[in-house]
């Protein structure tokens, strides 16, 4: 082996010890029966929205491609139930923008489309085409189309594939359950990507608060039969938020720092979420595209917290009803975890591809804190994984000083929220930094 595996994680800066609250980690995932209706937004990924390939009144089958786009950065969308297209409507996404959505009435039969056939994926080209057709986007929450990420320009040599199973957000255990319930698929998917992209080293990165995941995956990776060349190893990372953030993860696993505005491929790495690779293995075997998702339903307002495997497009309220409904009136509903998740306005929104958790908080937990004056304690500085000075960024954003914001590298902030989590004065640091980024962009600043 030319490239050695790290014995222990490399040092990273900052971070916070957020509470884990992994209440659902030891519970088998429940499979939700098909809902009577699904709402499938035409944008469930980073990039161009799709246009529908079916019209109102059409019959659709499970796995049938119902929307696609000509754009490179995009991913097709498939029917998650069999039934009839009832309407084209508009839904508000978690980010606040409206997109078209197909409403499909389920016939309850889940008839599988004849389109669903194992794809041909024996060359790099056909493999990437298959990844595109599968509709796969980054399932860790980012929603970046997988085929775009895997299409590395030929001048960049990738030597390390990092499988992200850090899952550092509190509550969320979707990847944890995937690793335990679907471990064969994890290794099979890893091998597919590794062989097609000719990568010599694969590091599965898991936070050390998941000893069962580490043990399960290690057993496979250390098995001579399953991993003959010993190309795959599990690396236990310190459970410290935001360990699963791409740049932090690469630093922990390889000691390489992705330069500002560059991609992991620029330092020879590709990072894939563990559920993404496991899905890929299943897709290559069966041809069933991305039509369902494991979602952690938890939070103080949920009756029976658990992981649920949900057809994409299922309204959130239906999933919550499946989990016994609300035990207390919800005051805040999050798509994603409490550190980076987005608060939504309505529980009738559908589950989309990159959802990994729905966290419902009761009144007590949703309470907003009044900000007080910054006392310059430095907790935001010592916590920032990007070595920025959040309190300065906040001041410059408030004063609308685009030049200083740029000088203090506002664009490097990944909005992980560690600064605001740490802040004893409850300053709205992330909010101010987002404003600062918008200021820099509108000032036409160079990156």
């Amino acid at each position: 082996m030319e490239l050695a595996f790290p014995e222990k994680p490399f040092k990273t800066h900052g971070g916070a010890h957020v509470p884990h609250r992994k209440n659902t980690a030891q519970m088998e995932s429940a499979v939700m029966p098909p809902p009577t209706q699904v709402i499938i937004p035409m944008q469930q990924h980073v990039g161009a929205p799709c246009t529908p390939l079916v019209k109102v009144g059409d019959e659709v089958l499970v796995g049938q491609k119902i929307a696609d786009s000509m754009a490179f950065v995009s991913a097709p969308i498939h029917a998650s139930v069999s039934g009839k297209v009832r309407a084209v409507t508009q839904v508000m996404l978690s980010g606040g923008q409206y997109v078209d959505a197909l409403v499909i009435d389920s016939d309850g039969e889940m008839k599988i489309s004849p389109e669903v056939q194992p794809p041909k994926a024996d060359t790099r080209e056909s493999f990437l085409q298959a990844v595109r057709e599968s509709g796969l986007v980054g399932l860790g929450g980012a929603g970046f189309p997988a085929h775009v990420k895997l299409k590395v320009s030929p001048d960049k040599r990738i030597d390390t594939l990092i499988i992200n199973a850090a899952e550092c957000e509190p509550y969320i255990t979707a990847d944890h359950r995937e690793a335990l319930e679907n471990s064969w698929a994890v290794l099979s998917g890893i091998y597919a990507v590794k062989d097609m992209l000719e990568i010599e080293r694969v590091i599965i990165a898991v936070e050390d608060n998941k000893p069962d995941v580490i043990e399960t995956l290690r057993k496979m990776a250390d098995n001579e039969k399953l991993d003959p060349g010993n190309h795959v190893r599990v690396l236990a990372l310190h459970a410290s938020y935001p360990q699963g953030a791409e740049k932090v993860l690469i630093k922990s696993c390889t000691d390489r720092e992705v330069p500002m505005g560059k991609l992991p491929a620029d330092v020879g790495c590709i990072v894939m979420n563990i559920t993404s690779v496991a899905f890929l293995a299943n897709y290559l075997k069966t041809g069933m595209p991305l039509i369902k998702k494991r979602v952690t339903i938890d939070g103080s307002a949920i009756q029976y917290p658990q992981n649920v495997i949900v057809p994409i497009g299922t309204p959130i309220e239906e999933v919550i009803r499946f989990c016994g409904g609300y035990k207390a009136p919800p005051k805040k509903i999050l798509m994603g975890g409490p550190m980076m998740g987005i608060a939504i306005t309505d529980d009738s929104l559908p589950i989309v591809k990159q959802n990994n958790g729905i966290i419902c908080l009761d009144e007590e937990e949703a309470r907003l804190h009044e900000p007080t004056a910054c006392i310059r304690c430095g907790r935001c500085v010592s916590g920032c994984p990007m070595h920025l000075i959040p309190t300065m960024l906040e001041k410059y954003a408030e004063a609308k000083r685009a030049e200083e914001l740029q000088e203090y590298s506002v664009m490097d902030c990944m909005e992980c929220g560690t600064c605001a989590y740490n802040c004893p004065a409850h300053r709205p640091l992330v909010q101010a930094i987002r404003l600062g980024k918008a200021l820099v962009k509108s000032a036409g600043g160079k990156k």
Partner: protein
Amino acid sequence: MEQKLIVSPSPHLRSGATTQKIMLDVIIALTPAAIASCILFGVQALILILTCVGSCVLAEYLSRRVMKRDNTIFDLSAVVTGILLAFNLPVTISPLIAIFGSVVAIVVVKQMFGGIGQNFVNPALTARIVLMASFPAKMSNWVVPFWYRIGNPDAITTASPLGLLKQGAADQLPNHLDMLLGARAGCLGETCAIALLLGGIYLIVRKVISPVIPLCYLGTVAVISLLAGRDVIFELLSGGLLLGSIFMATDYTTSPINRNGRIVFAVGCGILTMLIRMFGSLPEGVSFSIILMNILVPHIERMTRPRPFGVKKEKAKKEGAQE
């Protein structure tokens, strides 16, 4: 949904730290030294501490009210300032002078610059310096420890250890054990080294302060006194060095926000302290050193800005040189 949901930006989870809890931790850390001062200097010490705390809180409340700002006395920072101010006064001082000091600290130094987090120098130390300039004799009127048990009033007044050293009366210096326990002349809260160290350890364990500033400050003093052939332990335990390095130089508002800045700041404090002790006309220089370094904080922070993630070291240096 019938019920409206709260929509707010992430993160939706907070660590639970608040300014009030931090200040409460500082008050807890100051308690051993406060108890020691009452044992060493009697009930007058307690009266002085209560006077300073009361007048600081009242000054904070009234000045915020006059300025039509919200009431901030419950963040407890005024209580901390009050205790620190009292710790910087000789026990013989009149309560009226102490109240004057409180007003200087809270109104002039803190609130007139915008309140907590905005003052550019340490309020309690600045008030001490104002009092030293205004009442030089009263501010250096030291008494021996346990003076309240001594019948003969002539035997009460004495000089501080650093004062004795300056006068060349090295033979009258207290021994190291007395210095450690605080059985020496000095300001209320500065004498009992053991109590101050205990408070410092508490603050470090509770992660209220990082050990960088006290260690670099004390380390610099130790190295310089070693090089200058002075008694290292005596230098470390005398004057207001421990009080200053643990509780005043670590003041959030007036010390650098990043680690490298804190190192520069603390080393600067150490060098200035020793320069004043060795060559100045004053016996002690902790207050002046910290205040001087306080003023330099914005420049130190600019000089020691952390290298953002992903920026190569050489490149960061080059960029720094261009600025």
